[in-house]
């Protein structure tokens, strides 16, 4: 073949491939921006949840590691300081006035001071934190099993979800919140932690109280928890998707 023809052919091939990939990519981008397509993609979440719940024993524990496995640096993601005046005051007081309220669809709403929570039976677990971004870190968490708190407030039969309201707001003033299925509150490793690696929780990691929900991704692990609310529907809370990140397109069921 003559060199010019080879060149011409190569140019043609390159052009065709480039155009094809551009069409495919812009096609995918158009679908992403469409009103209907992300709704179809979202159906996978329900399927994933159904299958994962069916094959995972209810009380199966997430792997617990040894002290030697603990990450030297445990990165803090998301909000690393609520930055409100109210929170600054709590910091100044050493969180002595911090309370956890449990309200909503329960027989006996209650609140606990941080000191009272620390008096309750606790659980310590060295677990792996899997961020949605892809990285993992291992830390030792100590806190109160939420199941114990549930036994004290007695959820009503209607209650389906536990919503965690937090003290942090984003730059636009939107409050952070998270939620989980009520059944997951009774998992032994689901705790409200007040210690990381044997030290009181620091501000970047959610002082003084944060959620550990070990079988799901990092963005479910709400920090700066002030209030738990049991509800029968997530509609009407925040953006209605069950959490700050969920309202921005992340899955509510964060098992994968």
């Amino acid at each position, binding site marked *: 073949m003559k060199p010019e023809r080879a060149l011409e052919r190569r140019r043609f091939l390159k052009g065709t491939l480039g155009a094809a*990939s*551009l069409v*495919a*990519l812009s096609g*995918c*981008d158009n679908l*992403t921006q469409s009103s209907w397509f*992300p709704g*179809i*993609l*979202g*159906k*996978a*979440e329900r*399927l*994933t949840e159904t299958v*994962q719940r069916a*094959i*995972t*024993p209810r009380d*199966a*524990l*997430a*792997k617990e*590691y040894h002290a030697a*496995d603990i*990450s*030297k*640096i445990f*990165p803090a993601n998301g909000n690393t300081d609520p930055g409100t005046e109210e929170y600054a005051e709590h910091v100044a007081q050493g969180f002595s006035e911090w309370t956890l309220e449990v309200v909503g669809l329960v027989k006996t709403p209650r609140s606990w001071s941080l000191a009272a929570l620390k008096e309750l039976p606790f659980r310590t677990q060295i677990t*792996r934190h*899997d*961020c*949605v*971004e*892809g*990285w*993992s*870190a*291992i830390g030792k968490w100590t806190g109160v099993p939420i199941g114990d708190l549930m036994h004290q407030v007695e959820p009503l039969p209607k209650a389906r979800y536990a919503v965690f309201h937090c003290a942090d707001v984003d730059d636009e003033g939107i409050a952070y919140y998270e939620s989980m299925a009520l059944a997951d509150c009774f998992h032994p490793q689901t705790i409200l932690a007040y210690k990381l690696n044997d030290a009181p929780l620091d501000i970047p990691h959610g002082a003084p109280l944060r959620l550990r929900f*070990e*079988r*799901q*991704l990092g963005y479910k692990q709400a920090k700066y928890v002030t209030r738990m609310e049991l509800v029968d529907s997530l509609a009407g809370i925040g953006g209605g998707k069950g959490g700050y*990140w969920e309202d*921005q*397109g*992340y*899955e509510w069921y964060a*098992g*994968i």
Partner: protein
Amino acid sequence: MAAPIRFRDHAVNSGVEPVPTAELPASATASANDRGASSAPSVERVYRHRLPVRISHWLNVPFLIILIMSGLQIFNAHPALYWGDRSDRDRPLLSMRPMQTDSGEIKGITAILGHQFDTTGVLGYSNGMGRGFPAWATIPSGKWLAMGRQWHLFFAWLFVVNGLMFMAYALASRHVTRDLAPTKRDLRSIGKSIKDHLILRHPTGEEAKRYNVLQKLAYATILFIVAPLIVLTGLAMSPTIDTAFPWLLIMFGGRQAARTIHFIACFSFVGFIVIHVLQVVLTGFLNNIRSMVTGWFTVRHEGASHEA
């Protein structure tokens, strides 16, 4: 006008589909064969790919493209790989990061096992932004982790269902044992086959009717090693699945190791696809495409006087 060449039609693999008798004007093949052969060359049509295989094959084209490109989007959220269970950020196996030089210029630096490469414009830094893979390689093209996950986790289901259906069919129909498993003779001829591939000499005649040994090994590796590996390592990244099947973490050496293997398996697919498409083009593009669309593959038997 020369006499028409008769096709010796027969279905090699299956009696399910009709066996057409077709004739083609000699002009279509005459020029290639008109080299003074003493006996007439003939063109044989063989039924090479059965319908379930063809469907499964073509479904995988969009599925894999979407999975690879949305996977790169997800990778871009933390463009670094590690071994073991945790990410020790000072010791990545691979990372793609923007870095500022002394002159203030930003470069994309890819580090593999401590060795740094300048990959500005493609990896680490492209289009004026710090990002692992460039916009043209990801779905969506912009940085959007939540949407990349939506695409990836939806098409992952389709890929798995398609794969399981193919496996069931391939085993039940004996496609695996008959067409994909290399025979002892195949394995003995592996050296010759490698040489033939390197000089781009392709099997003709009877030999072209079945997969050659490298082809068999490539298909079998992708189907039975890389594809299951990419699914299992994907599952091993799920904290819930790790709880249900703790052996996954043991098998792959930790969640971050699973993520690294997932990435390597992804690029094994990319490598396979590049070579596969190249071979399809080199060994008779239209014939190959036709056989994967209709099932029918054309094999040309040269006349006796000019053996290859």
